């Protein structure tokens, strides 16, 4: 890493990297000027609406679109699921219509007549025996390490057995899935897509429409939430382009709220019978789990349990349940929140059985974490204990203070990879001094634009505002999709390499005039100057003017030379809750997280990821559930009234600490979007157990479940 020209500046030389910098697209967003795909209005544009199947599992017997086609204002109708096709979940798009207004399109969609043949369905999977009876189970591979049977049979080993679970939830992106499509010529398409993968979208349209991929341009300047669910063109994307072609007009086809919740992705559930054993001193030695869950009609999501801690003797069996619900899509940290809950809650129960402080138990076992990350976890647990005043507020299970309000603390740890994805950046320096960084990337709200600007500005010795970042267009150099916390590592590395090369080209152009060898120049404070001799300097503008009519352009790639990023982060989170034992209501008092992610580019947006993740975690811990009806097979809460999200008064006080400095910074840039959303479920569940003395075995922790747990009493 040493002596590589691309390496990150040393700590003392960083003017911008690691500082708290406001996102550069903040004004566009807060003023409402930012145009999302849902906001795109094109001349003559048509509005598309879906014909949604109201049944969970049916075969299509007939479709009659004639009445819809005849309606004034209707310009195109497309069947998405033809006769004979099997619909696998309620709400799925069977057909679509395009019309001159949203209202007419809706009328027309309702005028499409579809006949269905009913097929057997399963929509609730929590009861494993019922799943089995229904023939909906599919065994996944078993994983066995060591000798769990022997370890459990050791008389010195204390074991705990329990049942735990976390239901299917949805992404509930505020901007629904979809696209505006416009044909620019007979073989040439432009799409305004709400997507996490701008560069990858054209190929999907091209293949489906049988046109050259280079003839498709995808634009996504802003996206109203994705969380892992927006990588695909989807049936509605194709139908949009087809109807746009049929009608000869652009078509806007983004989903309605109900179909967004019913069909545009779910996070698979996870239920498990867990047995975990430790020596009396708390050393974890054995694990056994039988886990099941569903992510829709096809197998998805083997949960990596035991999570983080590689207990030496362990066996896990996983069974997929095939259910008729909207399909699994990556949901921020796929499989990890479920795995954290199914691991950290039984371990917490075991700690209670051992009369141990669970935070101490995690400390003790931290070296079971892979890649030698035990030391980091201990540092993070120590930090989060301070932040949450653990020693002051934690108590053995069951708050003994009189009254019906019981307070408790819970802890969990988590991990994620987050290596930067492959991608390209093009940095251009114009003779007038203006600088652009172009990438076929996208900013999901994580601060991607800002990170690119900071890296380029740091490298070129310019203020952040001097960099024009162009992303969100597939005409820019190919960049990876934004999933799995891979974006920040990818774009920061490619931008760094491009900016260093562009800067060096500029150095070469001005070196002769300054009488200084190019490798003795530096770019700082808006100047190009001789290292250690400010008398030999040019302002940025003067320097660029020396380019004459030449423009400096440099491509940066990731991966590439120099270790600019790596993989593997951790974090520790504590939840502090109060539970009303008469009503079962859980109130968040405080949440705290200590999180590492290597070298932080922008402290402000990094912290925002943690704050946001904790809030999202509160939502799925206390409120969220895709509620399915056994009789009709439909989702009962496909709206935001009963698909509940926390509001501004429901989150308590939040504390974030980013682990930085020696031991962290030299790891380079690592992603952060996923990790802090993993632990809240386990931390909150553990806090509730600490407060009331009994385990509420499944999320969300609703009043109903708290009261049931209290009524049952004793350890679950």
């Amino acid at each position, binding site marked *: 890493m040493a002596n590589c020209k691309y390496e990150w500046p040393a700590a003392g030389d960083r003017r911008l990297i690691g500082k708290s910098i406001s996102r550069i697209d903040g004004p566009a967003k807060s003023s409402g000027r930012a145009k999302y795909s849902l906001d795109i209005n094109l001349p003559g544009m048509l509005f598309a609406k879906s014909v949604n199947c109201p049944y969970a599992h049916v075969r299509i017997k007939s479709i009659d679109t004639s009445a819809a086609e005849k309606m004034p204002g209707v310009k195109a109708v497309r069947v998405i699921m033809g006769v004979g096709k099997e619909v696998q979940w309620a709400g799925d798009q069977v057909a679509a219509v395009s019309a001159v207004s949203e*209202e007419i399109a*809706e*009328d027309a969609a309702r005028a499409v007549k579809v006949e269905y043949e009913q097929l057997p369905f399963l929509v609730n999977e929590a009861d494993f025996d019922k799943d089995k009876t229904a023939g909906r189970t599919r065994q996944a591979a078993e994983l066995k390490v060591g000798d769990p049977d022997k370890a459990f049979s050791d008389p010195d080993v204390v074991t705990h057995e329990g049942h735990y679970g976390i239901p299917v939830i949805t992404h509930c992106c505020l901007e629904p899935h979809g696209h505006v499509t416009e044909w620019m010529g007979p073989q040439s398409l432009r799409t305004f897509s709400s997507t996490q993968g701008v560069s990858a979208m054209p190929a999907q349209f091209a293949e489906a429409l049988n046109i050259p991929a280079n003839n498709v341009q995808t634009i996504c300047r802003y996206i109203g939430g994705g969380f892992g669910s927006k990588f695909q063109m989807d049936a509605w994307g194709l139908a949009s382009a087809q109807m746009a072609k049929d009608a000869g007009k652009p078509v806007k086809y983004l989903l309605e709220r109900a179909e967004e919740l019913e069909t545009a992705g779910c996070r698979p559930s996870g239920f498990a019978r867990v047995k975990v054993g430790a020596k009396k001193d708390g050393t974890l030695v054995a694990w056994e789990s039988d886990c099941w869950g569903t992510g829709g009609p096809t197998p998805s999501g083997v949960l990596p349990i035991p999570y983080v801690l590689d207990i030496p003797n362990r066996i896990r069996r996983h069974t997929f349940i095939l259910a008729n619900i909207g399909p699994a899509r990556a949901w921020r940290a796929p499989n990890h929140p479920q795995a954290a809950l199914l691991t950290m809650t039984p371990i917490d129960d075991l700690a209670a059985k051992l009369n141990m402080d669970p935070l101490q138990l995690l400390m003790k076992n931290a070296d079971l974490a892979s890649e030698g990350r035990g030391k980091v976890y201990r540092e993070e647990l120590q930090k989060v204990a301070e932040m949450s005043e653990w020693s002051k507020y934690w108590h053995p299970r069951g708050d003994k203070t009189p009254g019906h309000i019981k307070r408790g603390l819970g802890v969990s740890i988590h991990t994620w990879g987050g290596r930067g994805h492959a991608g390209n950046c093009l940095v251009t320096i114009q003779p007038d001094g203006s600088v652009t960084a172009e990438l076929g990337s996208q900013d999901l709200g994580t601060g991607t634009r800002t990170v690119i600007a900071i890296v380029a500005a740091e490298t070129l010795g310019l203020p952040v505002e001097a960099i024009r970042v162009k992303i969100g267009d597939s005409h820019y150099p190919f960049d990876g999709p934004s999933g799995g916390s891979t974006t920040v590592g990818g774009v920061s590395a490619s931008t760094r390499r491009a900016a260093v090369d562009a800067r060096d080209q500029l150095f070469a152009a001005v070196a002769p005039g300054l009488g200084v060898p190019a490798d003795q120049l530096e770019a700082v404070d808006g100047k190009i100057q001789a290292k250690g001799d400010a008398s030999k300097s040019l302002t940025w503008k003067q320097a660029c003017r020396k380019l004459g009519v030449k423009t400096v352009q440099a491509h940066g790639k990731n991966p590439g030379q120099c270790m600019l990023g790596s993989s593997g982060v951790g974090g520790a989170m504590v939840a502090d809750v109060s539970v009303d034992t*008469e*009503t*079962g*209501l859980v109130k968040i008092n405080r949440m705290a997280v200590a999180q590492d992610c290597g070298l932080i580019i922008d402290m402000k947006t990094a912290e925002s990821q943690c704050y946001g993740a904790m809030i999202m975690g509160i939502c799925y811990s*206390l*409120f969220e559930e895709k*509620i*399915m*009806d*056994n*009789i*009709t097979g*439909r989702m*009962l*809460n496909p*709206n935001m*009234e*009963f698909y*509940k999200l*926390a*509001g*501004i*008064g*429901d989150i308590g006080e939040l504390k974030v600490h980013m682990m930085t400095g020696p031991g962290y910074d030299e790891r380079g840039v690592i992603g952060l979007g996923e990790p802090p959303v993993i632990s809240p479920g386990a931390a909150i569940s553990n806090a509730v157990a600490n407060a009331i003395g009994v385990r509420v075995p499944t999320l969300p922790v*609703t*009043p*109903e479940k708290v*009261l*049931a747990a209290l009524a049952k009493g004793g350890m679950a």
Partner: protein
Amino acid sequence: MERFEYANPTSRKEAISLLAAEWGQTEVLAGGTDLVSCMKDFACTPKRVVSLKRISDLRGIRSSGKELRIGSMTTIRELLEDQHVKQGYPALIQSAEYIRSEQLRNMGTIGGELLQRPRCWYFRLGYGLLAQYNGKSLVPDGDNRYHAILGNSGPAYFVSPSMMAPILIAMGAQVRLEGPGGAREITVEKLYRTPAQPDEREHTLHPNEILTEIIVPRQEGARSAVYEVRQKEALDWPLTAAAVVLKMNGDTVSHARVVLGHVAPVPWPSPEAEQTLEGKTVSEDVAEAAGKAAVSKATPLSMNGYKVQLARVAVKRAIMQAAQGGA
């Protein structure tokens, strides 16, 4: 949303003349937050919508020595800001403050609040008010976690959605209804009923009547409070609610009104709880006993047993709040 005709009369008489004599043909538009949502869900599909917004005398609050008269088109925000209400009817303020959305308070009217349609998810998904599917109700064997625990012998299982009706009933309020045959005044309690047929509504308003006024008698010497058990601090529906009005004779309850919300297809007065309170000095134990009495006849469904406990607690806490000085 289906297409509809829109009418915006300027007088009550005109409004009434624009309404059809049977349900389903016309709907009255007040604040719109519920009706427009309902129409978007196709749970209501009127051919004509009659807006009351231009009828100026439906708006405003008048206070006399003996009563408060609230025009049905008075917004929740206007109610919250009214000095007479603040001074003489603090539990009404408390109730309105549970509507945790400034937007809804600005748009929503008290008349609309009382007559909003149930939130039962089967109703909103299009299975009708009685949630009928293949000739029987979906609720008993379906997901009934938010459904009724009282007055639920069928065929209606939804809960009355109004957040303000319980306290108004407890205060002995009346509503004025005007129709083609003239005006009538009935208690708020009598405004509601449990429908027995799919084409019946959950209230006793005639299809061509409008609710014009809410009349609240002066609450002299009364202590009152509203308590909602709700998951969220932010805008949310209560899981259960209780409204209590206690008339005191020194330390003793001389007369009590206890009305539960979100537990039955109608706001649910509890004579059992009232009897428990009357003649007693309120204590934690007495309140607890009243709470128990309030749910003594509860018949929870397969998934909503927890609401019995919540209702019990809501009643107890509302009583304690009222006794300690009230809202």
